């Protein structure tokens, strides 16, 4: 599957950006005394990023077909598969 590598990269990027977005200094930008929808901006920001991560993961995962995971695991068990797996 040609897309698989791209999906893996996207998943990695998502995790890395998730970490960056949840740490200062990015986080500090939103840590101000402003309210949005009645709640402090930073709270809305954190929950927003959280929701974003959940939705993005949901879509990324849905692109990885079950057979894809299954197929590699079978191949791995029986004869291994060097080409489709990247060492993380």
């Amino acid at each position: 599957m040609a897309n698989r590598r791209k999906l893996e990269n996207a998943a990695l990027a998502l995790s890395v950006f998730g970490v960056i977005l949840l740490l200062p200094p990015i986080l500090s930008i939103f840590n101000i005394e402003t309210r949005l929808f009645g709640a402090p901006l930073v709270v809305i920001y954190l929950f927003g990023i959280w929701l974003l991560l959940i939705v993005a993961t949901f879509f990324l995962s849905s692109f990885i077909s079950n057979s894809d995971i299954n197929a590699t695991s079978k191949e791995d068990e029986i004869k291994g598969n060097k080409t489709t797996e990247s060492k993380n």
Partner: protein
Amino acid sequence: MLSANFIILIAFAYICLLFAIAYFGDRWASKGKKTFLNSPFIYTLAISVYCTSWTFYGAVGSAARNGFEFLAIYLGPTLVFVAWWFILRKLVRIGQKNRITSIADLLSSRFGKSNRLGILVTLIAVIGTTPYIALQLKAITDSIKVISASSNNGALAGFGDGSLALGIAAVMALFTILFGTRNVDAKEQHHGVVAAIAFEAIVKLVAFIAVGVFVVFSLGGGVESIFTKAQEAGVDIYAKSTFGPRWIAILFLSATAILCLPRQFQITIVENSDERHLKTAGWAFPAYLFLMSIFTIPIALYGLTTLPAGANPDMFVLTIPLAADNGALAMFAFIGGFSSGTSMIIIATIALSIMISNHIVMPIALRTSDNIGTEDGQGVTRLLLTSRRISIALVLFLGFLYFWFSGNSDALAAIGLISFAGVAQFLPSMIAALYWREASVKGAIAATSIGFLIWGWTLFLPSFGNTNLWVANLIEQGPWGISLLRPQALFGIEGMDPLVHSVFWSMLLNAVVLIIVSLLSKQSALERIQSSLFVDVFLEKGSAQSRAMRGSASINDLFFVAQRVLGGKRAYALFENFAKESGVKRADVEPTAEFFNRLERELAGSIGAASAHVVLSKVLSGSEVSLEEVMQIADETQQVMKYSQQLEQTTAQLRSTADQLQTANSRLRELDLQKDDFLSKVSHEVRTPMTAIRSFSEILLTHDDLSKDQQKKFITTINTESMRLTKLLDEILDLNALERGERPWINLSIDPRQAVNRAIDICYPIAMQKNVKLEKVTQARKVSVNADADRLTQVFINLITNAIKYNDARKPFVRISSRKIREKYIVEFADNGQGILESDAQHIFEKFSRGRRKNARDDGGLGLGLAISREIIDKMNGKLELVKTKGRGATFRVILPIISKG
């Protein structure tokens, strides 16, 4: 208010409900009806055991005390699950391939099956988890106290906190023992318990959201109103100091905890039945955490705003509904909190009991006792179960003791973070186990030990600072007055948050020690094998370096091999039996020939005789056999057994391939024989005319006295034989070309009767010469066939001339008849010659068949004519056959398919 009796009754009923769910879950699982239990959502819900009463009660408390800090505890795991493809998938794969039973097993197994590391990890896990269990007991006890506070005449009247907590601990121990240690399974999966935990996950989520909705929309008048009122009441709703080093440390710790906490490892890795479930859990578990956290801040703020100043924020979830006189909601919230506490206790004690029994009790038992596991491993199973049951009770009792002695400690979250930081000490070794090939057991033990010591010194010990004067003094002065070693200011660095300080130093030194010691120490063969098994779990196991295992095999080597092949219990039983029979201790068994034979037989049962023999004879002869090689055979075997179905399929394919090869081979051999036969026949057929030619030319050369007549006669013979030779070669080439399809072949729609007539015309003179009556008896009506007209005529000429040539009847005739039957054109050539012997009939169409060569041999009947004819008719999709007739003579029949007009 609610009576204590009623609450105890509800709690008890709830536990009974869990019993029922676990019981039916086990029943379903054992019946193979795992479809529902096997759902990725059950798996995800079970992972939510992460949300303990610390989440249910403590998150609100934390939000009230420390602002948004609690969010980090849920964002860390979110990040780990978002990246499930990278770490969790590898852990699950390794767990399934190596039948990992706990985090202690994972590390011990990866680092050369080190027992010492297993014990170390188990001890840290127990020490790290005990406060956590105490925390649950405390939360449950507190919640019961809070909810029944106003009714003094209930069953609780005579109970103190301690006896209440002890009662809870006992009931939980009973439940866990009943369902967590029913059997010893190779994969340590507990379907019933997981089902119960999933149920609890739903209960706690719904309960918490119910409280949240009630607080926000019924009491607080919406989100905005809650924040505004809190601000008016003087609460710092922005909590801007939250996002400092402590935020980072907690984010890191929680991400670590979701991997390293024994209970999380148990649920996520060990209880995982299908790697694909991670795909769902990757987003569903973060979503669960999201829902679980969304009402925490409003509840905390509302509590801070409306409840009296002394109220314990950890109990806001209960006290707010109680204050609003909503007893039913409070009861539901209590059940939710109870759920989160019990689920944590159950899974954590199961995970710890497995670790204690497998890594502490078993090795000790194996070392000290000689007669365990002698009967089919039954003894081992019994020992494992007993030790697990005792471990569960022990762990809960330890938790109770911690609760008892640290009764004054009031903040739930603080205890939780201490636990997190404790188990985080596994992280460097775990990451190295997955990704760093060179990490050695010495490195892992040293690193984990140093991390654990620093954690104990800088975080665990100071947690008693409030209750213990000596500890408080230590924190202030340092040991023996050495200020550089003060627990919360190591090396003189002051002013750091104690948690950040501890995490920083312990993780830094842990990682540094791991790297340095690993680089300085040498891995054993077993470590190397295991490291490549783990690091390259997604790769083929072909890359193992060849590392020779020289010298004669020690009993340990043999046991090692047997263990890999037969599994620990069977191997143990085998060695044990043998030791018993030879009257020695297990450790003193000598690798005698007799023992080898027996071991080989046993191994053969698992991996086949050949492999067993190879493995053992190599080990015995001390010849250069890489341990990796042996391991690989053994591991392959395990996989083979595991995937026997696939293997059977493969075997079937192989068998069919072999069959095909065999067929092809025999066909080739046949063709080879045919070729030899053909060459031999060609040789004969060429030599025969050559003989006459040579002989007569010699005669002509050497005898000058020959008469003109003689000379002419001899030269005629030479000429005839030369022509025969030419014809032979032509025919061979023709046949060859036909067979190979070298000649372009075009079938046209023709009338076969014309070909018959032409053939008759051509053969007529020969027939006249030989006095053979050539007659056309019947003729078909006009038809069309797909054929090459010249070739078809050639076939007919061949058949007619044969019939003429070999006809020795007194009144010889050749009769030709043709007709149309169904969609076939049939023409027959019958003669009244000697006919063809039955035995020759089958070979008549073969090359150089001599079926008709008994008498006449004017042009030396080459035996190729019929072979060529058949080849030609084949190309026209027709049939040439010899017909059985009653009377004298032979009849050949040509059948050609008619093409329909239009």
